[in-house]
């Protein structure tokens, strides 16, 4: 999936392709230029050789002795790719290189258009000035099969006329071998490395403000909602982004505070009437004149307790949400702490099928009141939804640098969907709720928040469908 490739890799790839393209164009142009220069060099070399021949030819054939040195100067491998011709007017002699096609004479050469190179004025060994015309010219041999193109330099002096021709293919082979190949073998890897480096640097440079922005965003923890990003040091495009992000945070903070204040205020407002109600009922229950109303009053008192319970939990949750939960951390003798709660569990469920394994000398650092509440919630959960004659297991031990306490019990089967929403506020399983309708659906979410406020965790362990296993991890002393 293309959309899954990180932006940095995409930028790097594009940058790589662009740099490679650019470099290839440069290399190609440079090579073209080099080839032209090389060609010119060859012609100059041919011209020099022709001139040397024109000036030095005397009695014996200069052709074969020259062929080898010309070939090596032109860096071609075989003298077969060279044609050398010299005709001495004065002596009426014609010399040709060995590979000259015997049936072809001078007229058998079909010369193409000839650009004339400047005439050299050369001092001969005898001190007289001879003019040598060196022409760079191409020709084809009319009967030559396969068709070969020859690049030639011609020279004409008062004494004679001649040329040296070289097969163009041999020249381009030599050029490839001595110019193009070394060039490519050096330039290609260097340019690839350079392109990679460029691409990486470019992508890093582009991504740097994004990374910085991301780090800053991560730095804004939920409890620091009032923190905003500084506009300093960002490019103008990012400034817009940061500004809109800050504006969004403002709106979020405002609505968040409103929501938090609402639940806190609502809970607070509920407490006064609840207090009055509870006080009145308490008074009435102790009033001998009202004994007839006992069951009614008792029912009312239970409901008021229930309401108070929910209100307290809502208040505590709103405090957690607002990041205002203050912990009074002390070292808690965890072994006794857990034993006390197991005592309550025993009161509720009886000691049948209660398996207990608590290591001695466990110690947890935390807020004792809040942790009591956490475990009361867990025990209440077992009391409400555990099977009446099912087993319950409590294990507490040192684990992963902290203390892990697991409470497991048998229950009615719980669906995977229900398990996924186990800690959601106000969520209650439709089936389980039939067992007990007095739960608020807040206990476990509150327990989780308390564990997390301690830097610990509360999780539902994977288990059989009819087992609930809750694991609390809390930091050591």
């Amino acid at each position, binding site marked *: 999936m293309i959309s899954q490739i990180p932006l940095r890799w995409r930028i790097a790839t594009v940058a790589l392709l662009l740099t490679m393209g650019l470099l290839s164009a440069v290399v190609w142009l440079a090579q073209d230029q080099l080839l032209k220069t090389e060609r010119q060099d060859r012609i100059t070399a041919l011209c020099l050789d022709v001139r040397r021949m024109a000036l030095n030819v005397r009695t014996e054939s200069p052709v074969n002795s020259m062929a080898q040195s010309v070939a090596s100067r032109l860096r071609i491998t075989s003298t077969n790719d060279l044609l050398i011709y010299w005709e001495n007017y004065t002596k009426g002699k014609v010399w040709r290189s060995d590979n000259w096609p015997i049936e072809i004479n001078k007229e058998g050469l079909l010369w193409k258009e000839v650009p004339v190179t400047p005439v050299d004025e050369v001092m001969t060994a005898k001190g007289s000035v001879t003019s040598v015309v060196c022409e760079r010219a191409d020709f084809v041999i009319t009967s030559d099969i396969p068709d070969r193109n020859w690049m030639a330099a011609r020279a004409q002096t008062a004494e004679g006329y001649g040329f040296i021709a070289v097969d163009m293919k041999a020249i381009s082979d030599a050029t490839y071998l001595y110019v193009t190949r070394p060039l490519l073998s050096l330039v290609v890897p260097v340019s690839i490395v350079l392109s990679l480096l460029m691409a990486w640097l470019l992508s890093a440079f582009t991504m740097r403000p994004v990374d910085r922005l991301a780090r800053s965003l991560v730095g804004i923890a939920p409890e620091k909602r009032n923190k905003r990003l500084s506009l300093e040091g960002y490019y103008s495009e990012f400034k817009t982004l940061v500004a809109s992000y800050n504006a969004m945070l403002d709106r979020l903070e405002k609505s968040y505070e409103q929501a938090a204040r609402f639940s*806190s205020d609502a809970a*607070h407002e509920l*407490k*006064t009437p*609840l*207090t*009055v*109600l*509870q*006080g*009145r009922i*308490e*008074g009435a*229950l*102790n009033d001998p004149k009202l*004994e007839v109303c*006992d*069951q009614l*009053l*008792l029912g009312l*008192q*239970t409901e*008021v*307790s*229930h309401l*108070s*319970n929910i209100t*307290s*939990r809502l*208040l*505590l949750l709103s*405090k957690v949400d607002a990041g*205002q*939960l*203050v912990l*009074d951390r002390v070292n808690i003798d965890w072994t006794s702490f857990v034993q*006390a709660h197991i*005592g*309550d569990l025993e*009161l*509720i469920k009886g000691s049948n099928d209660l398996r207990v394994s608590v290591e001695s000398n466990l110690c947890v650092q935390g807020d004792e*009141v*809040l942790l*009591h*509440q956490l475990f*009361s*919630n867990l*025990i*209440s959960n077992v*009391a*409400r939804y555990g099977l009446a004659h099912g087993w319950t297991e409590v294990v507490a031990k040192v684990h992963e640098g902290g203390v892990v306490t697991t409470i497991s019990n048998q229950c009615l089967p719980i669906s995977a969907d229900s398990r996924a929403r186990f800690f959601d506020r106000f969520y209650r399983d439709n089936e389980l709720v039939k067992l*007990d309708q*007095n739960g608020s659906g807040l206990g476990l979410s509150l327990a989780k928040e308390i564990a997390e406020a301690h830097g610990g965790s509360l999780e539902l362990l994977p288990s059989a469908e009819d087992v609930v296993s809750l694991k609390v991890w809390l930091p050591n002393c």
Partner: protein
Amino acid sequence: MSTHQEKLSLRVLLVEDEQKIADFVCSGLNARGFVVEHCRTGHQGLEAAKRQEHDFIVLDIMLPGRDGLSVLKEIRALGISTPVVLLTARNELGDRLEGLELGADDYMAKPFFVEELVARLHVIRRRILGAGHDVLQYGKFRLDLVSRKLSYEGREAELTAREFTLLEYLMRAPGQLFTRAQILEHVWGYDFDPTTNVVDVCIKRIRNKLALLQDGEDLSVHIDAVRGVGYRFKP
């Protein structure tokens, strides 16, 4: 016979702006032998506290004008050491730290039971008076508040932490009716599931221990179940 503080006619200064709450707290405390003076604002409360005529101050945190915490701070700054119980509606768990740091002796979360307030006042009283008040005694029955042991004619019974707290709660006010909700809140804390039978089971265990101690006798001391409403201690 007993070390009941009610007979001493303890004086309580109640600072609470909510008239309805003040009414039932006043009547509840009066019924248990306390003399209550009620103030509606922080300023009035502070002036009353300065006279230092009270055994306890029950102080609401949310008050008009001057809030409870600042009154508490001022009281302690003036060197007045009268025990203070804070009433808080905000959040008992969040606000308790500040209050206790400022020198409060205890805090009560709204809504609360007057019985619970009375029990807390007695605990504070005991803490201040110290030794000599460490035993609750009715006839031959003794509840040692330090060793947490129950004894009768030399026979002793061990109590678990919950059993002890429950029995002490009932024994502090003999004849007084306590509902399950009140007992649950005092012994297990406000957040414990009110629908469990934990109170009844615990009462049953205490009764068994009481019966065992008074082996063969006519159970002169026992816990009554009252009209399905709750329990009371009968010396």
